[in-house]
């Protein structure tokens, strides 16, 4: 069963997605990641104002049988955090690309997008 990917999003090798609008990137984990993790029971709250570099740890997520770090797909400052998924982490399983977004980052350097994959590339990368 192929995991879902969304056209137009960027993807990392560590299974995060990035949606870019103006100079702001919304971050979440992919359908492949949520499936691998299983039912997510806890999401560590990302701090607003936190500055991250591309590939640095942004936050962490926990399921019953696994725990995983979530890495920043792009460098910048965290300007918004999705409180809803901190309260109910199951949303990430249900809608990993929509309501299950985790944080919004103000993009520092748009050049870094070069380091990310597109939908097709990521699909190939994660083909079962």
């Amino acid at each position, binding site marked *: 069963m192929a995991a879902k990917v969304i056209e137009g999003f960027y993807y990392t090798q560590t299974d995060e997605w990035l949606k870019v609008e103006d100079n702001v990137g919304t971050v979440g984990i992919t359908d492949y990641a949520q499936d691998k993790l*299983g*039912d997510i*029971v*806890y999401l560590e709250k990302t701090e607003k104002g936190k500055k991250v570099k591309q590939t640095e740890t942004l936050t962490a997520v*926990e399921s*019953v*049988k696994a725990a995983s770090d979530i890495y920043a797909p792009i460098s910048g400052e965290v300007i918004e955090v999705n409180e809803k998924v901190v309260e109910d*982490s*199951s949303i990430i399983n249900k809608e990993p690309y929509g309501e299950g977004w985790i944080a919004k980052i103000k993009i520092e350097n748009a050049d870094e997008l070069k380091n990310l994959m597109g939908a097709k590339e990521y699909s190939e990368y994660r083909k079962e």
Partner: protein
Amino acid sequence: MKLIFEKSIKARDGYSLPKDLFDEVDIKSCIPAYAATDAKKALSEVSEVDVIRHFTKLSKFNYGVDDGLYPLGSCTMKYNPKVNEKLASLDNFVCAPPLAPEETVQGCLELMYDLNKLLCEVTGVDQYTMAPASGAHGELTGVLIMRQHFVDHDDKRHKMLVPDSAHGTNPASCTMGGFKMIEVRSNEKGTVDIKQLKDLMDEDTAGLYVTNPNTVGLYDEGIRDIEGIVHGKGGLLYYDGANLNASFGIMRPGDAGFDIVHLNLHKSFSTPHGGGGPGSGVIGVKKALIPYLPTPIVTFDGKKYHLSDVGEKSIGMVRAFWGNFPVLVKTYAWILSMGPDGLGNSSEASIINANYVLAKLKKYYRPAYDRYCGHECVLTGRDYKKYGIKTLDIAKRLMDYGFHPPTIYFPHFEPYAEETIMVEPPESESKEVIDEFIDAMIKISNEAKTNPELLKSAPHNTPIRRTDDVLAAKRPILNYDDELKLKDELKWRAEDINF
């Protein structure tokens, strides 16, 4: 089943105290106002009879080694000899205060001293500390000894190599020791990738953790090369003794070049597991590392035994007092009961058992590696994915056949060790028991194809059905008072579990 709190009746009691409670002493003159409290702490109020019945019933929901096979890979759930239990419970041992004057505990000290000699001979090292309380505790002790060695030589190192097949305690211990863990891949044979090891090993690396046979139950043929590479750059080799049961009389870690060895006395040495301990993770070292051992160690001056300070280079202490003494007694008793031939036979019998399981089940459960194994074999449930079956389902169904499941999902490293089922039938398991197990596994393999629902909804014949672990993590209720706070929201079935 009802909790002890739910069985409490006001004013009921189960204690026995002397009549004389020193009533003439005024408690207010003993305890200052800042620490005094009027309220008694609420425990439970039950009689001794209630307590006996409560825990007797609880015990029947458990499954012990005396009930049957416990094929847990990496745990060596072998038979716990009963005479050893008796000897560890002798009053002169049991009632000995740890700080009693040395002349009153010469028996304890003599036993610890003799045990040290035996363990050194069995594993090929020079001195053991009996302090660590578990394997992981031993690993921490070992990692701190390694750190101290480099600090003492003015050679600060920051990295530690750990195979991807390693037990989770290995990387966790590295971190606790202040090292950055670097993973070494396993090759297609399941053993350490020598080429990658050579690339990774440098003068900033303290050393390498190895379990041999490794966690997939395979002996590492490259062990001499590994030793050469690690020592060649001034590193130290650490032996995780969880799998020692495959080595008695075959290979001694000291001879293979290991500098530090930890043993799990509650595994290879037959001491009982107690529902999660106590065990003991004694650490043995080669001569050069003795100055760094935790303090004290037992010495003999020709006449008397002493607890002697290791010296100023010691890493300090990793627990209060000296060790898990009754576990040491049982280990000592077991070694004396087995003798050199018995130890060799343990390894031989357990290795034959594991390979027998592998041979008989490999066409039903694809092995992670198709080669002879040590004392445990690693099968996988990979081929059942297409029926919608996870390895977890196979394990839960096995319980319906009266067996405790083997270790599942460990070890886990791609691409071979996935959906793993690690089976270890120690030497105390007979061929008939193993045949029954094999039989059950074959039946389950058929059920997976013809009636997968049976597995997915398993277990059916156990005291309780499959548990909702997600709910437990999402809505933590970690004591009875948490439950009381949520009482109205919860909809438990109020019945007692009847087994």
